[in-house]
């Protein structure tokens, strides 16, 4: 951005610096309790662990920036995974399974996008409902089956490491991060999404079809859920009807913790990226310290609420200093 300061950018950078310090601090603290954490292969395992969450959180950043939300991502992933497993076991065609998983994910996202852009049903309600819809369909499709034991050459999508410690998922994550971050910060896409989040009317009055953007970012979120399902399966090697449980909370937490405002307009893809790593370190640390997954979820919920509160308080402070509050937007345009 040629060294020029965009208004509000400074505060966003501060937010990311704080996150970065939190990340490093967390690694150090956990490392002190469990020195094995400092081993590159263990530390970088975090990035493998967070591959699918990270991908979905990046797409979710786009959505929350427009003032929307996609709660259905977790069970969309589950549905894609079940479809993948079923196809693979019935046809033994990996390629077909991959394509079908991606198509199902995309269709799920398109369904959300169509409802949200064509009707007045708010994104929260829409995706809350489709979340249950996808969950139900995945259970109906799977019945009592659990698909596990995928072929070795498929597992390579997630089990390969570079230099012995650098998981391949991190490469996927980095590639998508770079693309989405560049499009967000330097592309017209990011500009329009922020505009929609702040004031959709002004975007429409610039000759931009905002509804089409909304349709496609929900579709993107769905497609990425499909992609995440494939990567997830490569790591776990079994598709179950509970694998989507609680994923949406991790995804939303990563985005909110990363500094994206639930009121729209303000977003940070790189903030989401760092926040994803924080959540990953926490998860890995919890495993190393023998703390349960449920305790992890508990902690995550607390973190989400805390970051919502902190962002709200910071916003209020800014308002007191004369910066217009972001929350002043009326929530539902009834």
């Amino acid at each position, binding site marked *: 951005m040629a060294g020029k300061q965009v208004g509000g950018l400074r505060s966003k950078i501060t937010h990311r610096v704080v996150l970065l310090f939190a990340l490093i601090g967390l690694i150090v603290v956990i490392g002190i309790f469990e020195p094995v954490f400092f081993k590159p292969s263990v530390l970088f395992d975090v990035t493998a662990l967070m591959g699918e969450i990270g991908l979905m959180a990046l797409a979710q950043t786009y959505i929350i920036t427009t003032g929307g939300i996609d709660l259905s991502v977790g069970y969309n992933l589950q549905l894609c995974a079940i479809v993948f497993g079923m196809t693979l076991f019935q046809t033994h065609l990996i390629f077909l399974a991959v394509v079908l998983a991606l198509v199902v994910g995309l269709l799920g996202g398109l369904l959300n996008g169509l409802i949200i852009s064509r009707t007045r049903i708010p994104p929260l309600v829409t995706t809350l409902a489709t979340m249950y819809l996808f*969950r139900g369909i995945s259970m109906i499709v799977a019945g009592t089956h659990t698909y596990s034991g995928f072929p070795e050459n498929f597992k390579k999508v997630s089990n390969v490491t570079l230099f012995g410690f650098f998981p391949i998922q991190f490469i996927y994550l980095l590639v998508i991060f770079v693309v989405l971050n560049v499009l967000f910060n330097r592309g017209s896409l990011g500009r329009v999404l922020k505009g929609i989040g702040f004031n959709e009317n002004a975007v429409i009055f610039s000759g931009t079809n905002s509804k089409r953007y909304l349709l496609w970012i929900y579709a993107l979120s769905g497609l990425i859920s499909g992609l995440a399902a494939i990567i997830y399966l490569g790591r776990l090697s079994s598709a179950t009807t509970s694998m989507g449980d609680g994923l949406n909370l991790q995804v939303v937490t990563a985005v909110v913790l990363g500094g994206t405002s639930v009121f729209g307009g303000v977003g940070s893809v790189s903030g989401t990226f760092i926040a994803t790593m924080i959540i990953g370190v926490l998860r890995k640390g919890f495993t190393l310290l023998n703390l349960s997954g449920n305790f992890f979820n508990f902690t995550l919920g607390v973190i989400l609420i805390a970051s919502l509160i902190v962002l709200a308080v910071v916003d209020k402070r800014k308002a007191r200093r004369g910066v217009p509050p972001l929350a002043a937007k009326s929530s539902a345009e009834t």
Partner: protein
Amino acid sequence: MQTRRVLTKELMLGVIVALFIIFLSLTTRFFSISGLFSLMLDVSPTIVGTIAMTLIIFTGNIDISAGTIMGFVAYASADLARAGVPMIVFVPAGLLVGVVLAGLNGYITVQFKVPSIVVTLAMNMVHIGFFATFLPNSGWIEGVPTSFTWFGNGRLFGLVPYVFLVTVAVTALFMFIMKYSRFGKGLYAVGGSQQAAALAGISPDRTVFRVFLFEGLLLGVAALLKAMATTNDVLPSTFQGREMILIAGAVVGGVGIFGGTGKIIGAVYGAILVYLLSVTMIYLGFQDYYQFALQGIIILLAVYLTVVDLKKVRRRLRHIFAHTGAKGR
């Protein structure tokens, strides 16, 4: 402009009766007065819970943690009962747990101006994590004493379940509150327009906080009605996900998701309808996970019907009728 709603009371009652007939034709188990009362016993907690959710939705908010709050109430009361505490203590204590947890949701929503759906979604996870982490056996309580179960299994004159009587009382009380109290009118006002409500001297913040307290109380009642109907154990995790049934019942009952519209009695009909649909499906041989998909679709459909511009739909219908020669009015 007179009849704008698709989800009229008449239509809903018709669907309920139709579902009921289908249901009764599937099984003879409930084909007796006592059997019918057993159904009423079963649907009671759903009705009370739906009323709780409806109050929240009236103000334009929502509570995704309703199910887990109910779990907490059931756990707290059952645990106290098992420890030998009398009913006069464990019931109010359980209700208090509900009020405090829902009040926390309300406080965060109002104080920090955070959308209630995000707050309660996170709270839902906090609750689930808390149960599994901090409570012995994930809060599963075996061997609850009769001091806990007698009420849930008791029947007046051996026929009418106490639980159902409580439900009727609660329904009547809240219909009364909505009609005869300033608080009730305030809920509609705040849900309709925060600005206009403030102009009329009604504080939106205070109203929303208070409605969360009421919701917590009612969720507590619903949880106890469900938990006390047990014979042996209480498993709080069975309450997880119940919020969807409550939301479905409310929106099917014509409670507008944007707030400011709907009736308690509509929500009661909605709850019964959603309940009948689910038991019918079970007796038709569908696994219970069909419910998830169905609830999603029901919510989308019901919300769509409340937000769609019915004038347009009617105009289109009239158009079609006009072309087929029939008279559309």
